[in-house]
C-alpha cells in the first residue's frame, strides 16, 4: 500500500521533471529538472530493492554527469539564449514519432506476461554484484574501464586550448 503510493508519487514527480527538461526555455532550469528526474529514478531504484544502483545513480548521474552539464552551461552562457524558439520546425513530426515509439513500447510490454509474483532479490546483493563484476562479467567491466580511460584522455585532448 505504502509502496504503491510512493511509486505513484515518484512516477509523477519523475515524469514532471522529465517533461520540464524537454520543454523548459531556460537551459539552466532544464538541467535542474534533469537533476530532479535523476533523483526520482534513484528513489524508484530504492523501491526496486536495488540500493546500490540507487546510490550509484546519485553519485554518477547527479554528482558527476549533471554537475558537468551545468558546468558546460555556465561556460557557454555567452552563446545560449539567442535567436528565438528553442524548438526546431519538425516538432509536430517529432511528437508524432515519440508517441508512436511509446505506443510500440507499451504494446510490446503489454504482450509480456510476468506472472503474479516477483522473485525475491538475494539478501547480500552488493556482495553478489561485486563478485559478478570480477568473475562472470569481468570482460565488460574491463572494457568499461578502458573506455573510461580513453574517454578521459580524449576529452582532455579535445577541450585543450591550443595556444598558437
Amino acid at each position, binding site marked *: 500500500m505504502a509502496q504503491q503510493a510512493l511509486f505513484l508519487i515518484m512516477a509523477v514527480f519523475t515524469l514532471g521533471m522529465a517533461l520540464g527538461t524537454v520543454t523548459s526555455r*531556460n537551459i539552466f532550469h532544464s538541467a535542474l529538472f534533469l537533476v530532479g528526474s535523476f533523483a526520482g529514478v534513484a528513489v524508484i531504484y530504492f523501491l526496486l530493492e536495488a540500493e546500490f544502483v540507487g*546510490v550509484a545513480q546519485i553519485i554518477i548521474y547527479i*554528482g558527476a554527469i549533471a554537475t558537468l552539464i551545468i558546468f558546460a552551461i555556465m561556460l557557454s552562457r555567452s552563446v545560449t539564449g539567442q535567436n528565438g524558439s528553442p524548438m526546431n520546425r519538425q516538432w509536430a513530426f517529432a511528437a508524432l514519432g515519440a508517441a508512436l515509439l511509446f505506443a510500440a513500447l507499451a504494446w510490446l510490454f503489454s504482450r509480456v506476461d510476468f506472472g503474479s509474483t516477483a522473485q525475491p532479490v538475494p539478501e547480500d546483493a552488493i556482495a553478489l554484484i561485486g563478485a559478478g563484476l570480477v568473475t562472470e562479467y569481468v570482460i565488460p567491466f574491463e572494457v568499461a574501464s578502458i573506455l573510461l580511460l580513453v574517454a578521459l584522455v580524449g576529452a582532455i585532448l579535445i577541450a585543450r586550448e591550443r595556444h598558437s
Partner: protein
Amino acid sequence: MDLSQLDLRLIGVWFNNMLAGAGLAPGIISLINWVVGALLLLIFALTLAIALIWIERKLAARLQDRLGPNRVGPYGLLQMVADVLKLLTKEDITPLEADRVTYNLAPALAVFQVMMAMAVIPFANGVIGADVNIGVLYLMAIGSVGAMAALMAGWSSNNKYALVGGFRVVAQLLSYEIPLVMAMLIPVLVAGTMRMNGLAEAQGGWFGLGWYVWTLPTAFLIFFIAALAEGERAPFDLLEAESEIVAGFNIEYSGMKFAWFYLAFFLNSWVLAAVGATIFLGGWQGPFVAQIPALGVIYFIAKTLLLFFIQAWVRATFPRLRIDQMMSFCWKVLVPMALLLFIAVAVTLKLGLPQPVQGVALLGLNLVILLATLALVSRAQKRSVGAGKRAFAPELPRL
C-alpha cells in the same frame, strides 16, 4: 544499579513498548519512530551548530592572540544567540535579476544535504539513524549533492563573483572527492563492511590499538586533507576567498538565507569530523564501552571534537593556497597516493597474514608510501623553484 543498563538503545526499546502498549499498529509505530528520530537529529544538529560556531570563534581568537566573543553572557557564550537574532531580523534581499526559485532553493538544499549525512553516523553502538548496509557509499552520494547547492546559488545570484565561486566549487569539490572516497574505502577494505556501525565495531580490541589510524595513518592523512577541502576550510577555502572573489557563491545572500549556508558549512565540518572519527578513530570504541554502552556517546563526541579542533587549528594557522596549487596538489599528489595505497592495501589483505603481522605490514606500507611521496614532492618542488616555474606544492617558508 546495573551499569550495562546505561544504554541509549534502551530508550528506543522503552519508547516502542510504550507505543505498542497504547495499541498502535506496527506500521504506525515505525512511522512515529522515523519522525521522532529525524526530529531529534534535527534539533541536535541545530544546537550543535551554535556550540560549534562559538568553539571555533573562541579557538581562532586564542590562536591569533585575540580574546574572541566575550561580551554577551559568560565567556561570550550567548554571542551566537545574539547573532541568530540579528540574522533573523535582517532584511531578506533577492537580487533584481536573480533566478528566484533556484535562488531560494539553494540554501535549503545545502542544509538538507548535511542533515541527510547525519542519518548514518553512529553515536554509540547501535545508536544510529539508519544503519544501511551501504553507509559509506551513501555518504559519498549525499556529499556529491552539496556541490549542486553551491552551483545553484552561484548561478542564480546573477553576480559574476558568485558565478566564479560556482566554478570553483565544481572544480574543488569534484577533484577532492576522489582522494576522499579512496581514503574512505581503504578501511572498508580492511573491515570488509560498508556499514558505519560495523566499521566502528571492527576497530575494537587491544585498548584502542585496533583503530585504523594506527595501521593506516597515510589513509587518515589523505582523508583529513581531502576533508578540509570538501569542508571548504582554509587552506582550501578558495570558494569564498574574500580577497579574490569577495565571498564566493553566497555573496548575494543575506539574513536567514545566508545563515543557512553558514549552518551548512559548520555542520559539514562536523559531519566530516564525525565520519573521520568513526572510520579511523574507532567511533564509539573506548575503554569499558562493553560494560557501560552509554560511554560510547562521550567517546564519539570527544573524538569528533578533537578532529574539529584540528580543523579549526589548521584554519586559523595556514594561509590560503592559490587555486592552481590546490588543483595540482590534488591531482598530482593526493590522487596517485590514494590509488597506490588502495592497491597496496588490497594486495596485503589478500596475503592472509595473521592479525598482528597484518597490522604491522599495513603500517609499514603506509609509512613507505607517505615517505616516498614526501621525497618526490620535495624533489619536484626544488626543481621547479630552481627553474623559476610555478611552485608544485604549497610553498614552504624559506628561512
